[in-house]
């Protein structure tokens, strides 16, 4: 029956092509992430950038006004800012380098088999688990010159005749807070590097041993190259984190004495919460962001290089 024959009717064309639909769906899945990141990361950054262009001192609401780059000009002439930037470099370099060395040594030790290894690993993590403020208070007491633990031990051991003001002397305060930060950060590197060590196939060591490689050669030619990606990632993360870390110094010295331990993050806090100068504090934050961005670009280049090597 010719009349009754069904004729294939073309499907109605959709408004958007399949490819476009898939693309839009994909982007829609990203919307929650974009919204969350925008609200929690991008918006505060933009807000800080805007704030840095204003004279925004909370105790002087009548003087609130747009000042353009005046806060940035002020920063260029601010001696304490430059001192705090230099102190930040010392703080980051001193902390991260010793944390790395201590952590590496700890990881190598923990990688060996011995009785009670699990217990020792757990104990090693303790400084990392304790909250930063608690660590600061404990070490403040240890360093207390008049009745602190350190001076007491040193004088009882006959190693000290005159009490040392660890946190009150401008020359000693920075090394003292760095030592505390090293104590706290060693477990971070130890655990990261231990994970890396455990991922290195033992066959490589066996092959190196068969080839007559010494302990040092096995370390420099097998261990170190294979740990390099982890070292770079851990070190870079730690540098960024230490640069922004204010709790320890804020509690132990408040940036003193005489700004000897004032780092950029504590100086920003001081401007925001003591002077209530939000405009200038925002300016400091933006500049620190730029410094960290520059570092991150450098860091990304380094890691990309490593990826290609690996």
């Amino acid at each position: 029956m010719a009349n009754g024959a069904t004729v294939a009717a073309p499907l109605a064309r959709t408004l958007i092509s399949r490819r476009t639909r898939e693309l839009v769906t994909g982007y829609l899945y990203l919307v929650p992430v974009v919204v969350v990141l925008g609200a929690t990361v991008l918006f505060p950054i933009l807000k800080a950038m805007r704030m840095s262009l204003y004279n925004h001192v909370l105790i002087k609401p009548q003087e609130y006004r747009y000042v353009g780059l005046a806060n940035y000009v002020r920063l260029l002439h601010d001696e304490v800012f430059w001192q705090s930037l230099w102190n930040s470099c010392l703080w980051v370099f001193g902390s991260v380098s010793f944390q790395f060395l201590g952590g590496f040594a700890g990881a190598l030790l923990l990688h060996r088999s011995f009785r009670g290894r699990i217990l020792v690993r757990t104990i090693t993590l303790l400084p990392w688990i304790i909250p930063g403020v608690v660590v600061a208070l404990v070490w403040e007491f240890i360093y207390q010159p008049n009745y602190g633990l350190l001076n007491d031990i040193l004088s009882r051991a006959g190693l000290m005749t005159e009490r040392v003001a660890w946190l009150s002397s401008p020359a000693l305060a920075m090394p003292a807070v760095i030592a505390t930060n090293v104590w706290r950060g060693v477990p971070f590197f130890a655990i990261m590097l231990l994970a890396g060590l455990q991922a290195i196939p033992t066959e490589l060591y066996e092959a190196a041993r068969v080839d007559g490689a010494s302990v040092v050669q096995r370390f420099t030619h097998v261990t170190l190259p294979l740990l390099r990606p982890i070292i770079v990632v851990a070190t870079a993360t730690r540098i960024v984190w230490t640069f922004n870390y204010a709790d320890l110094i804020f509690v132990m010295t408040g940036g003193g004495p005489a700004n000897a331990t004032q780092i950029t993050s504590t100086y920003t806090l001081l401007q925001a919460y003591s002077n209530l100068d939000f405009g200038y504090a925002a300016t400091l934050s933006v500049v620190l962001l730029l410094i960290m961005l520059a570092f991150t670009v450098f860091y990304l280049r380094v890691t990309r290089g490593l990826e290609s090597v690996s």
Partner: protein
Amino acid sequence: MDQRMLSRRQLLKTMAATGAIAATDLAWWEEPLLRPRRAWGAAPVRFQFSVPEPKRNALVESLVQRFNQSQNDFEVKVEFVPQAQARQKLITSIAAGNPPDCAQVWDNWVGEFDGMGAVEDLTGKVKDWKHYSDVLPIAWQTVTVKGHIESFPWVVTNDALYYRTDRLKEYGLKAPKDDWTFDEFLTLTKGFTKTDKNQYGFGMRGQGTWAVLYATEFMYANGAQVLKDGKVVINSKEAAEALDWYLDLFRKYKVCPPSVPTDGWRGIVEGFGRGVTNTYIHNSGSLEEQKGFVGEKNFATVPLPLGPAKKRASFYFSETLTGFNKGKNREGAWRFMSWLMDDEPNLMYTKGLGLLPSRKSLFQRPEFQNDPSYQGFLKSFPFSMVSPYLAYAGWGGKIDSEGVPLFQQALVGKLGSKEFLDKFAEVLTKNMS
């Protein structure tokens, strides 16, 4: 008390126990808890209290409960805020348009709040208040900004020197007289310094606003001033000489503990309490604490020494009750604040903490006049003055954030006294607003 006998934990326990005992020992404080609570009508009054120590907390909680039981129009709710964050929390709440109805604040903050247009002007009400003429005129001065009375001077105090009487006898030293001099002060602190025993003659303060204020008191004793004819003159020759002498106590004569550059209020009070220092300058606020730490009979107070100019100064300050004009129940706040100034609540609060009442009739009571430990403060009243740093609201935060780091630089020898004073004068001149 030997410092080895008192650990940090013991010290904290003692402090907590003192508060607990004070709160439980006095039936007066307990009484409100035994009565039934009443229903509340109007919006509650939010009262911010910024020195949350165990003893003060107990006193303030009891006062608030007692007030709430005394009337049924509204309820007072107390909010305890750590002292370190109190000023910033108040300022941010003012900026956000949601301040408490009233708060306990230091007199040097009132000017800042006034500058923000946030403070309730109490001038009219205060002048009709029943105890207006009973309050010491100098106390009103501490809370008067641009001719307006902005707060109640809840309690007042000035500075004097605490010293150990037991060790004075032990070391055969001469007790300081009321009109003693800089030289005698130096002799005493040298005699008190026994480094082999970890004891020092003077607990100098190196951190916080009062580190600069105590040094300024010594500069005044040499004839210096902060302001003269509307100009900052703290960098005068007299000021530099006196500051040199004062800083040399730490730098040259070594009669101070090495911790000075980072010793704040707790540092100097604990240093004396633990027996590390044998003298320190403070207001009467640590009297009661020291009675617990070193024993009532083992210390005394004396006015600050006379300087080469045969002058001296003790800076007077008050702990205020301040109302905010954006408060939800301003009338309630007034009623609560004026009630706190009444005889019984005021006496209990001041005596309980070792502070002095701002009302003459309470101030003259034997509890204060006959207590030997108060003598240094009472004898300092004739030459006490309102802190010159209250002159400009803009100086409030700057002394702490810029003045103190500069002072610390002078303390550790990075800046000379004159150099420090020149820089400090610059900071003050820039912020005369």
